[in-house]
């Protein structure tokens, strides 16, 4: 059922105050980008009669959400940009590049490789050769980057091998998201350890599809809608059984909690959102109830934290940092804004320079911090940090799992 309040109507709350332009990381790094308010909200309100009349710089928005965070009037600026982008590609499907297709559909590639014997190993070797020979650029992927490798076992496979303790009465459903599932499954393993230690059995549901975030930024809105409908139905099924759904990736959790409803305005999406938690949001709730396993870290190893923009947009502060500090971890937030990667954005060849310019403040802070590891909830932020600094990175759930082991 369609909701009465829709994100696209929020364009009328835009008073064109320019705050979004003042903080937009892409505007700062790239003088060709006209800035958030002139792309989504303004275009949306102009209702151009000619379907082909779209703002060229629309494709430069990274959907990082800093405009939403800055907007004093609650306009879903970035989502308006994405809706306009989707309209553009609907009118001009021929404008989709090979890189758009690949970067938005990594989940298809991941599934295909899993079905072929040694598919992942071959793909990884292929990527190494491709990168060495400079073939990535020809496909529209930034040749300077190392693409994330496919894990030899995805999390969905590792999960089946994990022996969770008997007799756990409470249950949560894990939404691993593509990056953790196929590129960084150890994060999922750490999540299971942490939840088990707190008396929760972790469930998986293989019917889940990619949250759709890469599809939305690629302009494949209809596909994203089908993913949303699929995932929302599953989340609501578990809601009926009082089983919460938890994500460790902050872009996935933002999608499930907020963006589905903003983009598609369906009642069942708003309903499902209530059953979705970010991992540290959930753990903080446990801590507030006095139900979180107590642990104290005595090591003074220094960590620096990068808050993903898609976490900041969730309006709940930085629960991972607060919780890790609480147990004695020596960790401080870098407070250096966007890393510049924004999911698949920085992987596009034409966005590489912008992406690295945006990240430079964060890179400088990390390099100057003397921290032994960078902690960050987002997989692609971690890729960007590794690329921009050579620092070691980890997900906060891995830090907590390690603390539990000691």
């Amino acid at each position, binding site marked *: 059922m369609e909701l009465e309040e829709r994100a696209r109507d929020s364009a009328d709350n835009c008073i064109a*105050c*320019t*705050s979004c*332009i*003042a*903080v937009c990381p892409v505007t*700062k790094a*790239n*003088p*060709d*980008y*006209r*800035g958030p308010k*002139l792309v989504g909200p303004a275009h949306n309100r102009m209702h151009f009669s000619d379907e082909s009349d779209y703002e*060229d*710089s629309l494709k430069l928005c990274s959907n990082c959400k800093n405009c*939403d*965070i*800055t*907007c*004093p*009037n*609650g306009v879903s600026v970035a989502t308006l940009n994405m809706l306009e982008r989707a309209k553009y590609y609907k009118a001009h499907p021929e404008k989709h590049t090979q890189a758009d297709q690949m970067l938005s559909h990594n989940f298809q590639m991941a599934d295909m490789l899993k079905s072929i014997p040694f598919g992942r190993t071959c793909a990884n070797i292929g990527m190494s050769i491709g990168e060495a020979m400079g073939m990535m650029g020809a496909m529209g992927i930034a040749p300077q980057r190392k693409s994330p490798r496919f894990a030899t076992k995805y999390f969905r496979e590792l999960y089946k091998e994990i022996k969770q303790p008997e007799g756990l009465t409470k249950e949560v459903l894990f939404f691993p998201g593509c990056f953790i599932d196929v590129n960084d499954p150890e994060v999922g393993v750490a999540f299971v350890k942490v939840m088990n230690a707190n008396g929760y059995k972790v469930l998986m549901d293989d019917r889940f599809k990619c949250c759709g975030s890469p599809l939305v930024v690629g302009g494949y809105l209809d596909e994203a809608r089908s993913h949303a409908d699929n995932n929302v139905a599953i989340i609501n099924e578990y809601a009926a059984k009082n089983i919460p759904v938890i994500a460790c990736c902050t872009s996935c959790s*933002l999608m499930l*909690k*907020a963006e589905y*409803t903003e983009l598609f305005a369906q009642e069942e999406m708003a309903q499902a*959102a*209530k059953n*979705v938690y970010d991992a540290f949001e959930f753990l*903080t709730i446990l801590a*507030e109830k006095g139900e979180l396993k107590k642990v104290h870290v005595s090591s003074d190893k220094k960590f620096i934290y990068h808050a993903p923009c898609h976490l*900041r*947009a*969730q*309006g*709940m*502060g930085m629960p991972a940092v*607060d919780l890790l500090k*609480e147990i004695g971890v020596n960790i401080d937030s870098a*407070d250096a804004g966007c890393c510049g990667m924004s999911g698949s954005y920085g992987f596009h060849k034409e966005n590489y320079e912008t992406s690295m310019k945006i990240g430079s403040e964060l890179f400088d802070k990390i390099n100057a911090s003397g921290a032994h590891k960078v902690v960050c909830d987002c997989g692609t932020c971690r890729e960007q940090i590794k690329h921009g600094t050579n620092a070691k990175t980890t997900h906060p759930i891995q830090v907590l799992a390690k603390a539990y082991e000691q």
Partner: protein
Amino acid sequence: MSKSDVVVIGNGFAGLMSALVSADQGKKVTLLSYGAGTFPLNSGVIDVLGYDDSGKAVANPAQAVSAVADEHPYKKIGTQALEESVKFFQDVVAAEGFPYVGSLNEQQWLVTGVGTLKPSCLVPESMQGSKCFEASEIVLVGIKGLKDYYVDMVAENLAKELGNDKKYTVVTVDPHYQGARDLTTKDVASWMDTEAGYADFVSQVKGNAGAGKVILVPQILGLKGNVVYKKIVAELGCPVVETTAMPPSVNGLRLRDVLLSALKKKGITVIENAKAEEAVIEGSKAVAVKAGGEVRLQTYNADKFIVATGGFYSGGITMRDFGEAKEVVFGLPVECDCVEERWVNKQLFSDKKQTFAKTGVRVDATLRGVNESGNVVLENVYVAGRNLSGYDFCFEHSGNGVALASAYKAAKA
């Protein structure tokens, strides 16, 4: 979220100052932010009182403040808190390497982005328009492609203000801008932050600098405090003055960055994108505020709350039906002269205040909301900034002054 001593709601100048003063008192502070406040929009200068009730220019803000009407927030705040707040602010920004000049006993003069003069009380070193008064020649720098800055108009208007016995020279600097969009002052300021941009600018202006001259530029002297200002004054060997500007305001952003840096040093927790939606009240006290989150509100417990949500302009006060004005978080009593014939003064630039602008929370001298009989409604909830009733900051030029002094008093209480 563990309990704080003080929760400040609001991310504008009043909110950030409330948080800083509270932390300076040794309190554990959490600040709930929603939007960037007015920093990207205002010039980051502190107007205390530019014009009195009759619209007459104020020469001595301290004196004029002591003579305001009873309904005015300054009357409730008192001159002592105002004086202390000014000192506190000047200490904070100076410690961050971004000093503000001025005092309560005189006005500073700003050159606006259209070449008129405007009084203010505390201004950054780079915006001291009074330096133009003594100069024999004003060199006005325009930037090729800069949006909303018409240097010839600035020259013409400034000549009307300062007289034709001075020489007015216009120089246009080419920033060699390649981008597809209109150039803003923020873009030029970023360019000035680069070594190459700075050198390019200086090379195009230097020939016009010299003794007895003032170089007048739009708000472009870098985004990082007064770094570029200090460098360029030394290099050009004569005063350099920035005008006020159209948004995005470079100096507003500088001030915001400087204050946020001070907040971080004080260990103040800032929760972004957390719109305060409702309060938890027990008896005559608030115990928590629920805020933020797309899906579920987070609860922020505290002993004390400061509401700096920006009044009508920023959604701190709403009025869905005429006459039904509402303070949105705590439901504090709002007073306004809600009579349709008096609500709006259609002569926008006349010598009368706007009734709607004076709408705000009715407070007593402690800055706590009071009902019509003058009794405090919630004993641990204080109000700062544009939420206060009884003044029209546009008319009298007192916006950041009231914000600063009320923030200080609310935090000290």
